[in-house]
């Protein structure tokens, strides 16, 4: 699987290259600035791009803007955005086109190599990988008035929904919560009923549906 990597700090870039290569990814390019990323995405047609939000020369949200532009040119281009901070504003912008293949994670998440690589693979396959912090903020704000549909979920259902919103499959959720896959399926069905969402097998679509639901009266 060919990866384009954009990160301006040498140490981190180097570490990411080694990490990804250790898991049998092919690094098509490892760049350190916005314009270079722009060129690499246009010419190399990678299977997935791993991009830092803040890049030279402007040191603003150059990486994010590049990723968004690249996805407008090539809809569905899988992009995993890494950042020192996660902001819902950016998460929404990434999810806005609804085509999937999007990830948005804190840089810390690379500490857990297995999970990070899993996230890259999920995104490359067209799924989503949202940082737990984004999901928690979303859920926290919905429970503010104590009346919303999210508040009618049982604690276990909330756990399942958090993992689901991060983009994990039923099997992964079952593994994480140490329950059977059938139990997870039952929980997800309950969640969909309580939130008034249609049942869907497509991982990506169901995450987007959950996020859209949580977001809808904004």
């Amino acid at each position, binding site marked *: 699987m060919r990866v384009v990597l954009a990160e301006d700090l040498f140490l981190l870039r180097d570490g990411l290259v080694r990490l990804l290569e250790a898991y049998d990814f092919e690094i098509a390019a490892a760049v350190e600035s916005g314009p270079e990323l722009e060129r690499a995405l246009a010419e190399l047609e990678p299977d997935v791009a791993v991009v830092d*939000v*803040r890049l030279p020369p402007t040191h*603003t*949200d150059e990486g994010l803007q590049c990723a968004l532009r690249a996805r407008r040119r090539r809809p569905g281009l899988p992009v995993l955005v890494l*950042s*020192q*901070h996660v*902001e*819902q*504003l*950016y998460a*929404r912008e990434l999810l806005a086109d609804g085509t999937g293949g999007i990830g948005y994670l804190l840089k*810390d998440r690379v*500490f857990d190599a297995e999970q990070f690589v899993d996230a890259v693979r999920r995104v490359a396959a067209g799924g989503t990988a949202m940082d737990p912090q984004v999901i928690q*903020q979303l859920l*926290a*704000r919905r*429970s*503010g*008035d104590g009346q919303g549909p999210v508040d009618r979920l049982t604690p276990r259902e909330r756990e399942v929904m958090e993992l689901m919103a991060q983009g994990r499959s039923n099997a992964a959720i079952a593994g994480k919560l140490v329950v059977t896959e059938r139990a997870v399926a039952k929980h997800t069905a309950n969640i969909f009923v309580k939130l008034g969402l249609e049942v869907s097998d497509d991982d990506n679509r169901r995450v987007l549906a959950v996020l859209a639901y949580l977001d809808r*009266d*904004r």
Partner: protein
Amino acid sequence: MNTNTKSGGAGSRARGTVLAAGRGLALAVASLPLSILGFCLSLVSMALIPIGVGALTTPYVVKGVRAYAERRRALAERWGGLRVPSAYRPASDSVNPFRCTYALLRDPATWRDLRWLLVDMTAGFVTALLPAVLVLYPLEGFALAAGLWRVMGDGDGGAYWYGFVPVDDQPTALGAGALAGALLFVAHRYTVSVFQVHFRLTEAMLTPSQAELAERVRVLTETRRDAVDTSAAELRRIERDLHDGAQARLVAMGMDLGAVEMLVDKDPEQAKALLAQARRSSAEALSELRDLVRGIHPPVLAERGLADAVRALALRLPVATEVSVELEGGRVEAPVESAAYFAVSELLTNAVKHSGAGRVWVDLHHGSGRLRISVTDDGAGGAAIGAGSGLAGVERRLGTFDGVLAVSSPAGGPTMVTMEIPCVLS
């Protein structure tokens, strides 16, 4: 007048004379009704304050007069070459008209403007009109001398007076012509200076007094001290947070790793546990650093500017928050941007914590050199500046930039806090 054959200096003086006369006439005609109108409206409006109506109208009238005075200041600079400084206190567009009126009445500049209007409609009018009279009146004398005297008499043989010359036959008419010539000479020499007197008058009446300038310096000194104190305290907090937080965790991590080095052969199990602990320490250090950075300069503010930073802030609130922005694409100056962001952040925190609001509205608007931000909630109300509400801190923060804060929060709500900071967009 055959100015073309005269020297260039005299020619330009003649042009200056005619120009001054023309401008003076226009100014006199335009300013008299405006000055009288402004003066009368101000008096009536202020007289009506006791019955309440005046409090609603006074802010508008006073602001109108100020705009008019500023126009005349600009004119004095353009036509008279005199820079007339203005020292209006920053006016708050408080939602409470009484408070707004009170603030305007306390500003000495308001009373100075009134005094100026009075002088402008009398002495100011005369000095503006005089140049035109000086230039036009001799023309009548020449016309009389040229034969107009025949039709100007009053019919009963009485004389027609031109200045102090009674005109009733050709010789006296020629006398009037001579007087006109003398007058024209005076006009040629003095018209420009007379017109200048008008602007000197404006300058004398509209320039703020030493006391006001001293007051302004005092306010600036105070806000500067506040700003320095605040940033020093902020630096101390950051230093302490780093020392007790991230720094300590990194030390602990180093120690854990040292222990791991020793244990890795002897007791791999224990080493693994320590490694896990070291990783946890590094994650915690990172998250502390993140919070610290957010407190110093939030990432979205650095990357996108005020509008998106406030939008991102709103997304993190547990209460539904609507943000509307009108900044015409520009970015606010960095220090103002930061002050405004933290002020909004504080107000939103207040709204969520204390008001019990179900909805919050934030409105960002930039117009006529001011950034205006209002934060409104549908909560319980009863907020006041001081009383440990955090609003005093916000006020101090804004004071550094001459910004003002107005609070309207009747018991039972809603609460509306409006901030205004003078600034330009880049």
